[in-house]
């Protein structure tokens, strides 16, 4: 097990990402966040809090479950548990920042893009990721990255948050 981010470094990364999002989009105009179940939702909440602290604006934040859009849905051994999707605002002409914990093959983001299309037509979609570990299988890249971590395919990146796992850390483990 290799510790790559501890609790303070996670906080710093989130704060930096919040700044970058505001900088790139020139403020909070039309901005909204979309957390991908389950740890993307927590990360989106934290980004929202940071953005509120910096820009004094509460940006609309939604929850997206992408399991129903996965391209490997019928092939996964264990049945996925379907969680709630909650989007209480109109996506039309919004800048949607998709938020997830790890970017790996890119298939989750592809599914999220599909799902978002069913909800409306945003002006732009961006991707915010805490850990980019490489090994993309689709032409997808992140706009905002907490940390790039080169990994081998036989390694697993574990992101742990207090809310779900009782502690704050990012580790790389052997499979």
């Amino acid at each position: 097990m290799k510790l790559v981010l501890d609790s303070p470094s996670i906080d710093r990364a989130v704060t930096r990402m919040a700044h970058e999002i505001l900088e790139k989009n020139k403020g909070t105009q039309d901005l909204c966040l979309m957390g991908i179940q389950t740890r993307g939702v927590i990360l989106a909440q934290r980004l929202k809090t940071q953005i509120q602290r910096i820009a004094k604006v509460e940006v609309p934040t939604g929850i997206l479950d992408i399991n129903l859009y996965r391209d490997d849905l019928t092939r996964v051994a264990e049945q996925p548990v379907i969680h709630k999707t909650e989007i209480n605002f109109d996506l039309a002409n919004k800048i949607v920042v998709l938020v997830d914990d790890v970017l790996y093959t890119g298939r989750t983001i592809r599914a999220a893009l599909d799902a978002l299309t069913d909800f409306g037509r945003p002006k732009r979609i961006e991707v915010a990721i805490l850990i980019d570990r490489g090994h993309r299988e689709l032409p997808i890249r992140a706009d905002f990255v907490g940390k790039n971590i080169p990994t081998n395919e036989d390694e697993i990146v574990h992101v742990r948050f207090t809310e779900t796992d009782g502690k704050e850390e990012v580790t790389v483990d052997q499979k």
Partner: protein
Amino acid sequence: MTETSWTRKDLLALEDLSKEEIELILKTAESFKEVSAREVKKVPALRGKSIANLFFEASTRTRTSFEVAAKRLSADTINFSSSGSSTSKGESLSDTAKNIEAMQVDTIVMRHSSSGSAEYLSKVVKAGVINAGDGIHEHPTQGLLDIFTIKEKKKNITGLKVCLIGDILHSRVARSNIWGLTKLGAKVTVCGPPTLIPRGIEKLGVSVEYDVDKAIKDQDVLNILRIQLERQAGAFFPSIREYAAEYGISVDRMKKAKSDVIIMHPGPINRGVELAAEVADGANSVILEQVTNGIAVRMAVLFLTTMVER
């Protein structure tokens, strides 16, 4: 808490399911309910899967509900009904089903007039089988959608008082409700004319009451069953008029019930017989929400079962 995993390709009866499995369906249905509220009411979850609706009994709402559910999951649906199909030419159920299966269908949704026909079908085909009502045995998705609706309104099923009123003898809805609700800890009462209460029903863990005025006091839920006029040939009660007087839920009778009681009915309603129009359309009625929830529950059932390897 470890998540319950779903392993059944068939949904034949609520009798077969554990409390945890029922809760998993309800939880999944909650997520699917959101899909129907969207602008684009469709997810690609079952893209490329084929679901056959095999209905040997006339049914509009259940068949339509399953069809909408399948379509919202992007599955292809194929409809067979008994009139004009080969069964009216004397083909056996097993042959009909095997023929449909030979068309590479993943799941068969069946309604049939024989109790046990769904279980029988599940033994002769490899495709998944969803029981959409088998004789007077069970109607599991109706039971699930009733429970889903009760849970939505009353939050917690444990300790809740639920009364099923009407023809219990010939009701598959009653049997599925009884199994599901008692597993989740509700206190179930069945109420109807003594001729329409089947023998030994108390062994399923329910109380029996013949007097509806006594039965409806203190109940949190009244689930009014349809009086099936076509099944009353055996002298079960003398007239519709007397049934309505003795068992119909009228405005007057409602005064005896708790003010926050919810009124349910699986439909179609015989207005003025088992249920007064004012009550069916009144503030306590959740009848149309049952219909909406039916789609979410059936999406959950189709999704969970169709994903299981054949």
